[in-house]
Every structure is written in structure tokens, then in C-alpha cells.
């Protein structure tokens, strides 16, 4: 074949060759011309990269990067937990998924390997304090989030399996008596050397009313009556509770259940601990026919048991012959979900990041092996990455995952910091004799000006603030509590709402980037399974509507509004100090959102009905969604700034730090622009959408809104360049030869 002897080269050489070979047919000439075209295009692309001052992302970010961004570089206890969880995820968990263990509703011996592995590797004991058999001192929200991230990287159901016992223990941990806490937490720790005992596992039973799944805290069908109450003895209660979709129920030794009194001698609702050895019926029920998270056990139990009243979580008092639980079930659930919703949100974001490597590998290898892609051709070398769209859509997936993770880890760190402050606040009020929640709120409300002052100082650069005043305010437990509580009341539902809701949509994007392969069981990275699982993550521990409602109530607080104003100023400074980060666009979108909230709070529709009202979810819920969009980019920007500051000090990162931070700035910018676009769209609909157009295209009362919106638009400058650069970086990044877990 004459064509085979022709070497590729410069244009003149090509022309000479073609001219000199009159015998070549058109079909024989075409590959030569095509290859020449590819080379020229590649050469031009390289020239463009240099001209545009682009960077190269050298490798996918590793532990060194994550430890700085998520602020656990100095915590080797957490770093070890990460390694433990990762080794399990990428061996035992991945093997189970690859072998099809997800294809059953039932809990099998094969799935049971997970529990043994969690026990052996310390994950079961992660939630406990050292004196209970754990190994991490202090709050463990960040630790649990990191472990969740690692397990969800492969399968979020395995993460749920790991967390479920902790969820059962959480009511006891948060509101239980010290005796309850030590007893059950110690029971749930794997036996220490020399001990011979069964590890207890728990289940958390809340779901009401049957047959639906999820809970309305106002509707409890589980009932409690007094079964027996002898003089001078502990009252015995009869607890009748049916559960649905109860995790861990195949092997739970105890259940923490929410019930309501059905007896004049018991007041209100409460949570209570039921054990499998209690007198009565402990029927684990039928397996729940769920189609997601199949590596966690779920059943629909029937429980009718006689238990002593001292199992009421938090204890009780006898007042005028009535058993008065210390905490009602809503108080306990509030305290629990305040923390446990964060890892659930994180699951979806972890999966988005996990999709990056398999998608890149698929794109690069897509055409190899086919006759149309000859070795050395761009089609062979770059595959689908030859095209901008595939690269840039993956940038969107990656940026969403980063923003979600930054938000979730920020919330976890806040929950850790909040732990001791909350306890100090409780001690303070107890010492002062202020025990009723209403009275406590009244005291905290009086401190509002100081709380706002603390927030202003907190976000003022150190060199510019009154440090003595800042220290003074910060040392006040109640002021600090009020500031953190208001922020937690935004971040926690925000993680759960945005990470899972938007995460589910972005996970679909990731699946679509792998074409038909993406919707097969053997798609590397288990992307299809990960996508379907996000629907559960968006649902349990409070579906999206619950989170929107939560945000509706908390986002209007003056303390949070002060925080958001401080964030907007901080991002404006970042816009100037860290060009390319997207600080300006985040700041302008925050200001637009705040203006919209105020406008809606003070405006009516054409019928004169107030726009911002608890009952008007068509207004409040979209505004909560818009706020959700803002949280991720803000937290990601903070993390990128941390990387810019600390990265150069890391010996392992110093070499390529400019490339790395350049890429992260662009990711942040991409996400910031996307978020600002969503915020602008929602705010515009809400501001204009409730008044009919009267043929006038100017609204004088909305001039400020128009200016703010125009600023959002203008602040998007450069965001598409950022996406171009980030996309190009994905085409060059070095990835491992193979995925590090079975497929």
C-alpha cells in the first residue's frame, strides 16, 4: 500500500508527497490529509494555551490538597480515619458492589462483611469517646463527615450502613442521661482485647405515619401507655411502635423510637430506648423494598414492648403523678438532625468528585480499539476530550462537587466548634436557673446588637479590627452561641438541601457524560448506582421541602443577615485581592439576594397579599433555594484562599502550587457564576413575577434591584474564560492508569 510509506510532516512535505503520488486514490489521500489537519490543529491549540497564559493541572488533587482545604492538616487522628475508610471503601465495599450485592433487598451474609470490616478498622468506634472505647477526643462531626466522604466515594449505602448505628446513638449522645450515654455507647464499641461480648448495634425509628416513608414531626402514631406502676418502683411503660424503612433493623439490638403518650399519666411525646430482649414483640418486619442504598439494611419493624421508664431518653420527672419526660421528641430530633444531616448531604457531593477520574479515563479511551482512531491521532490520544463540551460539562460536575464538599465540611467544622459552646451555654443557663427555652431565647435576643458587632469584627481583616473588643465579645459564651447557632441553622439545612438536590441533577450529568456505558452496572465508578442513590440522600433525614421550610424560618434572622452582609464584604475584598476567584460575582449575588428578601418582606402582589409569608411557599421556598446556591461557592472560595495561603508551605505541593491554585480559582469562578445566575433568575422571577405587566417597561421602585442585577451580570466577566481554562486543564491532567477499586 503506497499510503503506508508516506510519513507525516510539514505542510510542504505533505503537498509534495501528495503531488508526487498521482497514483493515490481519494480514499488513500484522505487519512494523510486528516492527520495533517489534526497536527496543525493541535499545534494551534498549544500556541493558544501559551498565549492565554494557561496552566496545566498536573495531577488530580490528593490528600495534601484536601487536608489544607478542609482544614485537617494538623489532625492525624482524622487523617488516619480517612485512610481506614478509604481502604475499606476501595476494597470490601467496591467488591460488594462489583459482585452485585446491591441487587437484593435482603440483608445477606455477603453484606454482613461490611459490619465486620467496620468493626475491625475502627469505624464502628469512631463516634465514641476514648473512655467509651473510641479513639478521638472531643466532637466528631468532621471525623464522621470525612469517613462518609470516603465511603460514599464508592457507595453511599455503605456510608449509611456505617452511620446508622451512630444515628441510633445520636439521641442518647445529644440528650441522654450520662448513664444512658455511657451504657449504650460502650455497648456499641467492638470488644477490646480480653473482652468477650457481642457488639450492640442500634436503629433509629421515627417514620410516621405508615405506610409512608419520612416523618411529619407533628404526627406520631407510636404510642406509650403506663403498663405497670407500683409504689416506690420504676414505672413500666408499654410502647407500641411500627416503623418503616428503618436502617440497621436486620441486626439492631436496640431501637431509639419516637412515641407519643396515650395515657394521662405520661406527658407529651418523647424518645425511648427499646431492646430486643424486652418483654413483648420485637418483630424486625419485612425488608423494605427500596431500590437504592442496597448496602444498608432496612426493614419495617413491629415493636410492642414493656420497658422501664428510665429508658426515656434524657430521663423524666414525676410531677403531680404524671411522668414528664425531660425532652419531647421534637427537641431531641432537632438536636440530632442539626448534626447528622451534614454527612447525608456530603454523600452526594463526594460522588460528584468520585466521577471525575472515571469520566476522564472514559473520554480519553473512548475511540481506542476502533479502526477509525489510529495510534498517534488526536482521536486516539484524546478521545472525546478533543471536544470542548465534554471537558466543560465535566468542569461543571467537578465544580458542583467541590462547592458541596466545601459547604459540608464547613458545616461539620462549625458543628464541632459549636459543641463545646452549646454545652457552655446550657451550663450557663442552668447556673442562672433559666431553663425554659422561651426564656433563654429572650435572654439571647437582648444580646443581638453585640452578636452583630462580633460578626462584623469576625470578618474584618485582623489588622483593621479592634482586637480587644473582638476578644471580649468572643469570650462571651452567649454571644458566641447566638452567632454560631444562627449560622448552623443555615449551613445544616443548606447542605442537605443544595448538595443533595442539585447534586442529584449534576450526578445525572456525570452519568450522561459516559453515554450508554454510564447506565450499565459495570460502568467504572458505579455512576448509575450513585445517581439513583442521590434520590435517597435528597430524601432521608428530612426531604428537600423540610429543608426549605427550615431555611425559610432561619434565613430572615438578623444575625444571619449580618453574617451574609459580612460575607458579601469579604467576597468583595477577595475579588480584588484574589483575581480570578469569582469573589465579585459571589458578593454581588449575595447583595441581590438580600435586597430581594427585604423587598419581598415589604411588598404585596396585585391582590394586596403579602409576598413573603410562611404560608406562601411559592415565594419563600425558591428564595431558600437561591440561598442554597450561594453557600457552596462562598465556602469553596474560602477553601481556595486557604489553599493559596497554606499550599506553598507544603513541600509536596510547592512545586506545582500555581497551577493547582489557578485551577481551583477557575473552578470556584465557574461555580460562583453558575450560582449567581441561578440567584439572579430566581430573584427576578420573585420580584417581577407577582405583579402583572401594565405595558410599562420601567419600574422606578425597582431601580436598585435593576442596578444590583446588572452588577451581577457584569461580575460574570471572565467566568467563561475560567471554564475554558479549567476544561483545557482536564485535557492535560495526569490520571492513574486504572481506577483504584474493582469494577
Amino acid at each position, binding site marked *: 500500500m503506497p499510503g503506508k510509506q508516506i510519513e507525516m510532516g510539514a505542510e510542504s512535505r505533505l503537498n509534495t508527497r501528495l503531488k508526487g503520488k498521482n497514483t493515490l486514490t481519494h480514499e488513500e489521500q484522505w487519512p494523510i490529509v486528516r492527520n495533517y489537519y489534526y497536527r496543525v490543529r493541535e499545534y494551534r491549540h498549544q500556541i493558544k494555551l501559551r498565549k492565554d497564559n494557561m496552566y496545566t493541572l*498536573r*495531577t488530580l488533587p*490528593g*490528600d*495534601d490538597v484536601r487536608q489544607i482545604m478542609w482544614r485537617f492538616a494538623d489532625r*492525624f*487522628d482524622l*487523617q*488516619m*480515619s*480517612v*485512610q*481506614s475508610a478509604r*481502604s475499606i471503601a476501595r476494597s470490601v465495599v467496591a467488591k460488594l458492589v462489583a459482585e452485585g450485592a446491591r441487587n437484593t433487598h435482603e440483608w445477606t451474609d455477603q453484606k454482613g462483611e461490611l459490619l465486620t*470490616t467496620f468493626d*475491625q*478498622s*475502627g469505624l464502628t*468506634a*469512631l463516634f465514641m469517646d476514648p473512655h467509651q472505647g473510641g*479513639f478521638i477526643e472531643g466532637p466528631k462531626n468532621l471525623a464522621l463527615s470525612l469517613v462518609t466522604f470516603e465511603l460514599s466515594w464508592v457507595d453511599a449505602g455503605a456510608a449509611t450502613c456505617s452511620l446508622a448505628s451512630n444515628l441510633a446513638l445520636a439521641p442518647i449522645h445529644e440528650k441522654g442521661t450520662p448513664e444512658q450515654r455511657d451504657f449504650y455507647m460502650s455497648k456499641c464499641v467492638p470488644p477490646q482485647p480480653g473482652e468477650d461480648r457481642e457488639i450492640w448495634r442500634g436503629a433509629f425509628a421515627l417514620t410516621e405515619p405508615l405506610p409512608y416513608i419520612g416523618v411529619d414531626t407533628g404526627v406520631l402514631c407510636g404510642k406509650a401507655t403506663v403498663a405497670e406502676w407500683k409504689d416506690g418502683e420504676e414505672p413500666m411503660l408499654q410502647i407500641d411502635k411500627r416503623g418503616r424503612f428503618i436502617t440497621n433493623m436486620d441486626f439492631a439490638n436496640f431501637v431509639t423510637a419516637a412515641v407519643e403518650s396515650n395515657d394521662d399519666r405520661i406527658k407529651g411525646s418523647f424518645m425511648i430506648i427499646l431492646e430486643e430482649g424486652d418483654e413483648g414483640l420485637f418483630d424486625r418486619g419485612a425488608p423494605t423494598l427500596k431500590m437504592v442504598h442496597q448496602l444498608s439494611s432496612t426493614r419495617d419493624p413491629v415493636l410492642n414492648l414493656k420497658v422501664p421508664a428510665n429508658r426515656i431518653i434524657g430521663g423524666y420527672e414525676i410531677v403531680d403523678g404524671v411522668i414528664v419526660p425531660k425532652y419531647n421528641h421534637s427537641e431531641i430530633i432537632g438536636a440530632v438532625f442539626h448534626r447528622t444531616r451534614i454527612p447525608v448531604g456530603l454523600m452526594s457531593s463526594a460522588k460528584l468528585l468520585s466521577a471525575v477520574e472515571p469520566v476522564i479515563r472514559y473520554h480519553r479511551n473512548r475511540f481506542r480499539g476502533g479502526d477509525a482512531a489510529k495510534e498517534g491521532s488526536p482521536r486516539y490520544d484524546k478521545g472525546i476530550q478533543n471536544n470542548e463540551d465534554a471537558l466543560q460539562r465535566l468542569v461543571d460536575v467537578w465544580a458542583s462537587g467541590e462547592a458541596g464538599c466545601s459547604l459540608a465540611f464547613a458545616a461539620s467544622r462549625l458543628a464541632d466548634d459549636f459543641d463545646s459552646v452549646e454545652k457552655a451555654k446550657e451550663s450557663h443557663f442552668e447556673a442562672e436557673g433559666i431553663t425554659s427555652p422561651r426564656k433563654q431565647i429572650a435572654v439571647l435576643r437582648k444580646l443581638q446588637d453585640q452578636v452583630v458587632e462580633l460578626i462584623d469584627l469576625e470578618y474584618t481583616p485582623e489588622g483593621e479590627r479592634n482586637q480587644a473588643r473582638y476578644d471580649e465579645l468572643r469570650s462571651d459564651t452567649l454571644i458566641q452561641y447566638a452567632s454560631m447557632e444562627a449560622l448552623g441553622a443555615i449551613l445544616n439545612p443548606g447542605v442537605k438541601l443544595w448538595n443533595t438536590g442539585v447534586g442529584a441533577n449534576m450526578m445525572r450529568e456525570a452519568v450522561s457524560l459516559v453515554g450508554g456505558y454510564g447506565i450499565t452496572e459495570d460502568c467504572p465508578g458505579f455512576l448509575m448506582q450513585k445517581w439513583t442513590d442521590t434520590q435517597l440522600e435528597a430524601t432521608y433525614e428530612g426531604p428537600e421541602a423540610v429543608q426549605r421550610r427550615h431555611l425559610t424560618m432561619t434565613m430572615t434572622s438578623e444575625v444571619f443577615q449580618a453574617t451574609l452582609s459580612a460575607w458579601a464584604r469579604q467576597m468583595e475584598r477577595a475579588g480584588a485581592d484574589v483575581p480570578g476567584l469569582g469573589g465579585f460575582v459571589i458578593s454581588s449575588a449575595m447583595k441581590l439576594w438580600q435586597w430581594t428578601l427585604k423587598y419581598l418582606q415589604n411588598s404585596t402582589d396585585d391582590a394586596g397579599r403579602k409576598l413573603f409569608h410562611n404560608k406562601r411557599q411559592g415565594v419563600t421556598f425558591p428564595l431558600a433555594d437561591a440561598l442554597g446556591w450561594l453557600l457552596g461557592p462562598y465556602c469553596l472560595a474560602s477553601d481556595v484562599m486557604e489553599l493559596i495561603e497554606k499550599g506553598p508551605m*507544603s*513541600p*509536596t*505541593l510547592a*512545586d*506545582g502550587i500555581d497551577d493547582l491554585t489557578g485551577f481551583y480559582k477557575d473552578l470556584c469562578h465557574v461555580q460562583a457564576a453558575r450560582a449567581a445566575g441561578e440567584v439572579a433568575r430566581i430573584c427576578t422571577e420573585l420580584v417581577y413575577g407577582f405583579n402583572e405587566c401594565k405595558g410599562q417597561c420601567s419600574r422606578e421602585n425597582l431601580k436598585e434591584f435593576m442596578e444590583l442585577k446588572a452588577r451581577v451580570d457584569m461580575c460574570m466577566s471572565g467566568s467563561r474564560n475560567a471554564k475554558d481554562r479549567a476544561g483545557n486543564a482536564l485535557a492535560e491532567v*495526569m*490520571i*492513574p*492508569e*486504572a481506577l*483504584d477499586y474493582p469494577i
Partner: protein
Amino acid sequence: MSTDFHIVVCGSIVPDPLQTLKPVDGPAGPALQNEMMLPAVLDPWAGHALYEAANLAKNYPGSRVWLVSLGPKAKLQQVMMSVSQKAPFELVVADGSASGFTDSFETAKILADTIDGIADLDKSKLLLFGGWQSASRGSGAVMQMVGEMLGVTEQFQGVDRITIGSDGSIEVMERIEGGSYQKSIVDAAPAVLGWATGELPEPPNNPQIGMQNMQKNMPALQRAQPADLSGSSLSFESVEVPQQRRETRVVKDVPVEEMAKEIVEWLKA
């Protein structure tokens, strides 16, 4: 005879073998592209030696285990977050290159000097463990040289099992050609044992062991002294990863017998 051993395991890190390992020319000779940014793991051969050492120490009370590592301490610290959870040991670090392109003699010298500097090490009880190969670029010579430098001349390579006798003697099972083993008995420590795979699985992570180890090992990492590997005159002409050789010819119009005949001729050639 005493059966409380002082076991020193020599072992360092290698880039995660799943990564793309592309040799490049660095300012100080050959290196791997983005080596510092790539995730690293404990050299699997050294890992076998470490797990065997920990198991031996567990079965012979009074024994101690040190892991002596020549490697960049920042990378070592990352790897220790996993390795520290697998077995109790004391870490001793020489902060230098763990690249596969260092001179074996220089590496051995640094390791021998570092081992010499371990306080409390009783050389009469010394069992010097390491891998008989390395996943970076095994010269298969470092352990022998370290032993010689420390004056330990009872040396065994390709070890898969040791059995301690009641008299303190050590029966060593070494790999030799043809899938066979050679059994030797050495009266007592000190000895050098270059491990093949051993017989133990990788232990599961145990954060409680990890926490105990890292209380001691983090300060050891902070104290690590820079290792001077500059004395070598070793140079490399060229470096490349082994290439897969594939010669494919699609043949459709030849009888199977002809094909078989051609393959046989090719094999004979």
C-alpha cells in the same frame, strides 16, 4: 538464649503503582513526572517485612520494632497515616530522596548510619529486616550492604518464613530457583533477612494502634535529619518504563494449520 528481638525494618515509600509513572529528566538526574504530587504507598516488599516483624514481636514479648525510612518526610507522613494503623513500631526517618534512582551504596550508608544512631538498640538482638526487592527500582543490594556496614554477616534473601526455636535459633526458609525453598538455621541474632512476600496478609487498619504509634512517630518525623546522598558518581544514560511489545497481524485467509506452523517457527526462532 534470648528471644526478645530488636527488629529493625528498612523500608520506604514508592509512588502508588496505579499512577502513571513517567520518567523525566530532573535537575538532579532521572525522576518521575510529578513524583511529589503523586500519592505514595509503603514499598510492598518492605510492607511484608514490617508485618512479619510486628508479628514476631507480638509473639516474643520484650521485642521491639523500628521502621527505618529514607524518604521525603512530608510524603512519609502521609503514608504513615495508613501504615501506622497496621502494626506497632517506632519510626526513624532520614529525610531524603526515596526515588528509585539513588545509588544503592549511598542509600545503604545512610540507612546503616541511621540504624547506628538508634538509642536503645542492642545489636546482639538485632534482626535486620527489609524487602529483598523494591517496587521503585530494586537493585537487590541495599540490605546486604547495610548488613555488612553494621557487621551483620548472617544474611538471607527471599525469605518467606522464619521459625524461632526454643533455644533462640532461627530457622529461615529462603526462596531459591525452580520454586523451591532452602532451609537454614542460624544460631541466634544478629541476622539480615531480606523478605520476599512472607506469609502474612496485610493487617487491617486499627486507628487505636495508629494513635499510639503517631504519638511517637510524629515527633520522629519532625526530628528527621536531612540525608546526604550526594556522594555518588552514579549516572544514568537513559531511563524508560518497560514497554509492552505488541505486534498484531490480522490474518483471515490462511488455514489454521498454516497459522500454527508459522507460530511454531516464530517460537523456534
